[in-house]
């Protein structure tokens, strides 16, 4: 297992290099010059002279291979340079926002797992009961409501009308409630239904019948056998979503004024702040690859039939 993880970790390096190359090429293909974007954002009329000065200051007047090589060398030392706009070290700016995004992502994942597992199992076990109907209605709304609108609805009822929670900002657990609910709602909708289907499918399997025939308690069959297998696709999905949540949840951050990295990076994209964009690509690539790896390792643990070579041993 250790060797497997080591190999997978090593494979991350070329993938990250590839990601930085693709993002570098895409930035170069953009018709907007970063120097011009900076001046426009600053409400300064971009004269040719000024543009040349800014391009020189940002190192954009160097040949493209040199720019790319310098960027990779810096990233290798975890030096992401300074932001064109704020003139502050990018990593310092990112680190400031990363903890806020982590809080939101982790609380959303925790809530999603708790509610989905509970509701998914109960709605499968008590198929067509009231709990199944409730889970179906929740899933229907969760999958259909746009996230920004749901956010506004939550603010309207829980903050403006009932005055229970703050409208915006972060700092206390109260600030965390509404953004977490908003982010989790759609995920709960998906995973509850997914888990319900998986559980129902597993209940038709012969091993469940044999286990019941052997007189094993229903609770044990469910928790030890059915749940373990049924939860597997849910973990894969959640692993992918964890990557998404950690790389920024721009809509929720925008609606709830949450000072996370999503807002920061979107603004950087509009302003062609290349050092910030490259830092984001690096972090996103790392997070997705690491999350993938974690998911695979968890899958291995839950279902030993999956071999380390990625195929099923029978």
């Amino acid at each position, binding site marked *: 297992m250790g060797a497997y993880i080591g190999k997978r970790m090593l494979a991350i390096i070329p993938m990250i290099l590839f990601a930085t190359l693709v993002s570098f090429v895409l930035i170069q293909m953009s018709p907007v*010059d970063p120097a011009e*974007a900076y001046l*426009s954002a600053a409400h*300064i009329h971009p004269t040719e002279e000024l543009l040349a000065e800014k391009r020189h200051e940002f190192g954009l007047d160097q040949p493209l291979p040199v720019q790319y090589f310098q960027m990779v060398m810096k990233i290798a030392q975890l030096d992401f340079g300074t932001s064109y706009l*704020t003139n502050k070290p990018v990593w310092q700016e990112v680190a400031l*926002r990363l903890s806020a995004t*982590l809080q939101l992502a982790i609380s959303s994942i925790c809530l999603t797992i708790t509610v989905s597992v509970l509701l998914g199992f109960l709605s499968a076990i008590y198929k067509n009961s009231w709990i199944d109907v409730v889970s179906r209605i929740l899933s229907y709304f969760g999958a259909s409501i746009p996230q920004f609108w749901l956010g506004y609805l939550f603010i309207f009822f829980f903050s*403006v009308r009932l005055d229970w929670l703050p409208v*915006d900002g972060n700092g206390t657990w109260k600030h965390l409630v509404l953004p977490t609910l908003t982010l989790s709602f759609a995920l709960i909708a998906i995973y509850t239904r997914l888990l319900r289907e998986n559980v129902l499918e597993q209940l038709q399997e012969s091993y469940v019948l044999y286990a019941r025939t052997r007189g094993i308690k229903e609770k044990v069959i469910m928790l030890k056998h059915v749940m373990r297998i049924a939860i597997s696709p849910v973990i894969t999905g959640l692993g992918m979503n964890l990557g998404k949540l950690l790389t920024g949840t721009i809509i929720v951050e925008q609606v709830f*004024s949450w000072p996370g990295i999503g807002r920061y990076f979107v603004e950087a994209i509009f302003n062609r702040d290349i050092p910030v964009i490259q830092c984001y690509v690096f972090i996103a690539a790392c997070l997705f690859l690491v999350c993938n790896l974690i998911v695979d390792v968890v899958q291995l643990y839950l279902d030993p039939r999956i071999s380390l070579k990625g195929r099923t041993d029978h």
Partner: protein
Amino acid sequence: MPGAAVMILLLLMVFVLGCTKQESASTSHTGTSQEEKSVTVSWVRDIGPMNPHVYYPSQLFTQSMVYEPLIKYQEGGKLEPYLAESWAISKDGKSYTFKLRPNVKFSDGTPFDSAIVKKNFDAVIKHKKTHSWLGVAKVIEKTEAVDKYTFKMTLTKPYYPALQDLASVRPFRFLGEAGFPDGGDTAVGVKKPVGTGPWLLSDYKQDQYAEFTKNPHYWGESPKIDKIKVKIIPDGETRVLAFEKGELDLIFGEGAISLDAFKQLKSSGKYETNLSEPVGTRSLVFNALNDKLADHRVRLALQHGFNKKAMVEGITAGLEDKADNILSKNYPYANLDVEPIDYHVEKANNYLEEAGWKLEAGKTVREKNGQPLELELIYDKSDPIQKAMAETVQAEWGMIGVKLNITGLELMLQAKRLREGQFEVYFWFNYGVPYDPHSLINAVQEKGTGISEAHSRLPIKQELDQQIHAALSSTDEAERQKLYTSILKTLHEQSVIMPVSYIKQTMVYQKHLKNVTIPASRWDHPFTGIEISK
């Protein structure tokens, strides 16, 4: 699986630590006394590093709270003494001598004198190129601290809007000695925001809030409120909800909330609202470099060919006014009567016929020499008003046989197309006061603005440029007014810039706030004189 468990534990630790840290930070600024008079406002983005000499991401309104100019721009373009008590301009228009106000102190108690004024000016003009968009920065030759309270600025050539430029929010405002970095170059940053203004930054959390309290050393009338808290709320709808909940006392700034939201809050009767005088003009620019638009008759036809009044009222819910002049009459030198180019479909059709654009039977688009009369209008796709207006214009011009393709672009790309002259019809905005009218005529004259290029094929362009040059360097007020009248009338007649509407600033506030006024300068803060009534 110990690995996964460790990872989960680590993530939980980060989460818990994050929460704890945030909580302690937030409690540090909540312990305010009940008597404290505080106003909470919102802003779309972080206030930035509060450096008076640089631009984005520093925000203009907070810069104007902490840093002050030598001269203040007031209603109607009147310039009033501020940190300078008086000034004298030499006959040749090249030397400006300012008598500084004595007994002015920075917020850290250090004195404001000619030495610090010179230091600030020198820090700015060290980066002349960065500030070259502002006319005065290009022409400053020399600065002198003549005596403790006399400061002299010498220009390379006469430039009348020098005082207007010095009245703007940045970059010619004054940082105290303690704010200068080692080496004195403010372009690399400031140590702390020390100004002479009525407010000082007392607490700040990036991307979350900034708090300003009264400057204890303020030379002028002290604010009637103790604290202003600026909450960073990027979303317009959330801002409205926070306001309705009472978490915000005041919402201001162009585009801070949608026009619909403003109208709804106003009609509720629960809040007070303010609407400013026009602060800018929303215009359409026809690029005369394009062969079709080079014909004056086509430009006139396009202006006559749509119902501007109905469009502006319909789309902006009456919160913008139909514009007949390129600049509204409340700007300096712009109070002139011009004949409006009114909505007249028949005139529009006649002009197009005269210009040779014929509408064949069974066709919907006019043609000339086999070429259809087809144009492209580019607009900022993130601006719903521009989009709605573009669609209306498209429909209206369709009725006179003009096919208009509308293209929504990212703002940066739109600006680039303007600068390069790569457009046919373009939504354009002037800077507003205190930069206008001189920045408007400068844009017509100076290459690379896109506006200059759009006018470049006009037969009178050379003459127009000469008049603009003369107006900007004129030292005679009457002569300058005469030149402005001529220039603005010519621009109106040539119809390259088609005024659409006058933009106004909106403000909505809770009823316990009194004396809330919109500043004369478009970019200043609105907190002067605000009071809280019980």
